[in-house]
């Protein structure tokens, strides 16, 4: 398993070096620096040199690296690195060079706890925060008293939740967030449209609540095996696949299709899902781009909102690529502001508020400088970002969220829907 965990900044300085096995030597940090950080040729997140494998993830301005020998479980290694980043973010707000330098002792402490002999141990933020804190003194007092409680939780079946959570007001917030991905061809046909959604829950519930959660889905997990999948009933959606937080009882889901769980305290990602059928595209884009001779490109981009008039999207940004040798650009818009960003080689068209059913147009002319070595323009796709509240591209709705607890308290639940642009690309 993992022989060592290393953190580097962009310059290649080794910030953290923790070995877990005897085969991880300090000089490996030089090897990684030379072979990966200062080697522009490296294109893979995995590099094997002799018997040593470096698996790395770049996050903000640091490299998070795991060293392994032999044929390790790569999925486990990367999941662990992701988790380390998540932990860092939840402890320090941000996991970058500054945060690492500011908290290096704590990071060593965390690493000692979440890896033993290179095997990942309990990595639940909630549990870890009970005994590894940014204020060292606090841990001092509490640990002696509560240590048994801590150890029980760190090894128990509900490792993600403390038993003594108490709230005066019991609330649960559910956010359904969908990233809609689109790839449209120059001819206007949809090459790919799918939704990857996540359901984020913020649970502020006392005690050990049992939650049951229902969606308007028809799960297509067994393919043709089930008669119910022949035609999705009106008002229901077909989810291609879903994955759950470890608190969800997968066995129960497999047999009865009920999502039941004891939530961790606070915010967590309850589930992720994917849907590919009947995707409602919030925006239709129609782009006409003409290259006139070698010195001019004309743009005519029309964007139409495909949702109800009562809704409106915010932070709509359309990025229209321009040739690399663009000298000057003039733009006209029927709504919002357009600006040419030479460093990124695109026009950014921002529309702060986009009402349903509206259609806005951008027209632009790009003047090109002539170049001695005329290369064809690769025409990268036009892309969009936006967020749209109270709308789901997949049509998914939360049917119910029930909370059962011994003390039988009543709880308030809130549901929010949001659709964002994932990779929303239109070729032209």
């Amino acid at each position: 398993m993992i022989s060592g965990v290393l953190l580097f900044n962009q310059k290649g300085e080794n910030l953290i070096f923790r070995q877990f096995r005897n085969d991880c030597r300090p000089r490996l940090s030089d090897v990684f620096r030379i072979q990966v950080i200062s080697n522009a040729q490296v294109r893979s997140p995995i590099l094997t040199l002799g018997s040593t494998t470096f698996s790395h993830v770049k996050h903000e301005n640091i490299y998070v690296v795991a060293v392994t020998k032999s044929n390790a479980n790569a999925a486990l290694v990367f999941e662990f690195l992701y988790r380390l980043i998540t932990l860092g973010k939840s402890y320090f707000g941000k996991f970058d060079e500054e945060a690492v330098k500011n908290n290096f002792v704590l990071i060593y402490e965390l690493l000692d706890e979440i890896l033993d002999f290179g095997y990942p141990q309990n990595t639940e933020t909630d549990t870890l925060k009970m005994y590894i804190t940014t204020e060292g003194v606090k841990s001092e007092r509490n640990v002696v008293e509560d240590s048994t409680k801590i150890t029980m939780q760190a090894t128990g079946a509900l490792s993600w939740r403390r038993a003594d959570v108490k709230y005066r007001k019991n609330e649960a917030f559910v956010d359904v967030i969908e990233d809609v991905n689109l790839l449209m061809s120059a001819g206007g046909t949809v090459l790919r449209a799918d939704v990857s959604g996540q359901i984020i829950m913020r649970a502020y519930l006392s005690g050990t609540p049992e939650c049951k959660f229902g969606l308007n889905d028809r799960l297509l997990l067994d393919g043709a095996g089930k008669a119910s999948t022949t035609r999705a009933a009106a008002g229901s959606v077909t989810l291609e696949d879903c994955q759950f937080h470890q608190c969800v009882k997968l066995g129960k889901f497999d047999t009865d299709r009920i999502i039941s769980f004891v939530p961790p305290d606070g915010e967590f990602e309850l589930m992720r899902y994917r849907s590919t059928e009947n995707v409602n595209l919030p925006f239709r884009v129609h782009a006409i781009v003409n290259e006139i001779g070698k010195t001019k490109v004309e743009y005519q981009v029309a964007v139409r909102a495909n949702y109800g008039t009562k809704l409106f999207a915010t932070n709509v940004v359309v990025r229209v690529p321009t040739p690399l040798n663009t000298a000057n650009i003039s733009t006209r818009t029927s709504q919002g502001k357009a600006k040419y960003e030479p460093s990124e080689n695109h026009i950014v068209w921002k529309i702060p508020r986009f009402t349903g059913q509206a259609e806005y147009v951008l027209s632009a002319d790009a003047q090109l400088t002539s170049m001695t070595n005329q290369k064809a323009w690769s025409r990268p796709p036009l892309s969009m970002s936006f967020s749209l509240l109270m709308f789901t591209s997949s049509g998914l709705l939360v049917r119910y969220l029930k909370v059962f607890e011994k003390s039988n308290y009543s709880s308030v639940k809130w549901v929010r829907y949001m659709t964002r642009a994932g990779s929303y690309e239109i070729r032209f």
Partner: protein
Amino acid sequence: MSTGGGDARFFARGKVAELRTELQSDKKDKNHVRKKIALKKIVANMTMSNNDMAALFPDVIQCMMIPQLEIKKMCFLFLVNYGRQKPEMAQHALPILISDMDDINPLVRALALRTLSYIHVKEFVQATVIPLRKLLRDNDPYVRKTAAFCVAKLYDHDRELVENSGTNGNGLIDMLNGLLKDDNPTVVSSALVALMDIWERSDTIKLTIDHANASKIVQILPDCSEWGQTYILEALMSYVPQDVTEAMIMAERISPRLQHSNSAVVLTCIRVILYLMNYIADQKEISALCRKLSPPLVTLLAKGPEVQYLALRNALLILQRRPEVLRNDIRVFFCKYNDPIYVKVTKLELIFMLANESNIEEVLTELREYATEIDVHFVRKSVRAIGKLAIKIEPAAKKCITTLLELVATKVSYIVQEATVVIRNIFRKYPNQYESIISTLCENLDSLDEPEAKAAMIWVIGQYADRIENSDVLLEDFLYSFQDEPVEVQLALLTATVKLFIQRPTKGQDLVPKVLKWATEDTDNPDLRDRGYMYWRLLSADPQAAKKIVMGEKPPITAEAEKLDPHTLEEMCLNVGTLATVYLKPVNQVFRTARAKKLQDSPALQRHQLPTVIAEQRSRELLESMSAQAQVDQAQMQVQQQQQQLQSAVVSNNALASDMADDFFSTPMVAAGDNLNPFAPVGGGTGQYVVSQNAPQQLYQPAQGDLLLL
């Protein structure tokens, strides 16, 4: 914003002497704040490796006595880092650690045990054994799980010590085994993974899990942490189903794990299910399981790019073993503009594998799009894929060629060169068709500057010398720089000139003697010289025979899907989700020390479904059909013919020649081990040669990755 800590100011280089004074300072030190700061500086300096902090050992050990957990942890970290360098000093810390193992606080007991067992010093290792025995039976599960890992650590330090640590259930390994019956799921999964770690490195210990045990550990799956679930699933790879229903039930029971959000759980679960399928007879059941595997694999594409890459590499693998998986999912592999290049390239390979007659339009539009992107390597691969598709899907050849010509029209040098190479292969696959495009190719002669593309173009000119009006002029242009060309191009030129002479003697008669003279007298390269002499003698001995040999009909190349050889495929499927799947190479080739995994025999094993067995079966049938129609000597004749064909087929491309020959001769050796006719697996008498079309960048053997059967 990053709050908390604020320790960055300690993250600076310090001198040993200064740090020592800070540690020893007699000033009033309330709550040991000063000492804490000094220790933090020391910890920071341990990483900035230039400073050897080991000199501070005695002072740090002094600090260990301070009853503050934070200080203690820093001292322990120091100890773990430098214990090995200064064993005599480290021993002073031993009593502190040992007394800590009796602490009332379970976290402290576990911490002491964990630290102690990290230190690779004889005294420490020996001192661990006695307290470890006690702590393996501690009443706190957290301590027990730490103890479980500790046994594996000790085994790493000193395997004999552990193996001889006791008998009659008293040995450490026996006690570890006992923990498998623990009522805490985390302890069980920890004990299991510790046992597997030991087993990886041991020759004496066997890990067998029977159905009853397997059922038990599967039962606790839901109660384990995500990592624990991964460990349990990995352990299931050591379970050998004894009958088909057993295997089926087990696959059913673990399949809910496919919905887990942790990709390690998902991929390991896929591995186990793929493994269990080998023991399932019912084809319906297998199809049902296959259907379950597709969605989770695709869902992994929503994870970080690193896991996406891993999922894609594994998809490449699984697709070869179980083509039902992912069959209808080609669109999800279309590249996003911002995908990292390693993801894009792998997606491209998957698109190539999944392409068929019904989706070819879509695929070509997509590949055409990729061919205009910025990354040169990716563009080249896309062009190459289009060419390979023309060979793989016969009915689509025309469309592929049209797309290629569109790309050639862009006049981008590397696109033209790449297209030239693939078009050469298309000519070899479809001789005497599509020759109308030769003129388009000839328009772009000037942009060729890479040896491979040049050689390809020269081959085309030579092969079609009688149909290209000015073939002699074109060749002469190339010959102008003969001396400066790499051998690959020189060989191509030599062959092409001979072909020109044979087809149009009048046009070639001036060129041939010149080239033959260069090839035999003015070169040091043995291949070029040998081939030069061969042609020379052939032409002077019997021009008719020369024509037959040089211009004789060659078998058209064929394209099977890109495939791993059956042995590798079978082995890789037992390693889904591991690093080896990224390289798609036999595990021991990349990781020499790794324990090789093999499918274990059992009454339930569906032998006839295994790729190796099927391949063996095929070659046996071939052998039978061969011996039925011919005697052994005739077979040998064929072999000779094959070799001749081989010779002439590769004349045009020297780079391919060595690979071809390697593969040609290595294949029989594999088969010879199976007591088969040494030449059977090559594909009967028809002469199919395995050629590595483009040597993959990081892989050092042409057997996998971008492999094309020609």
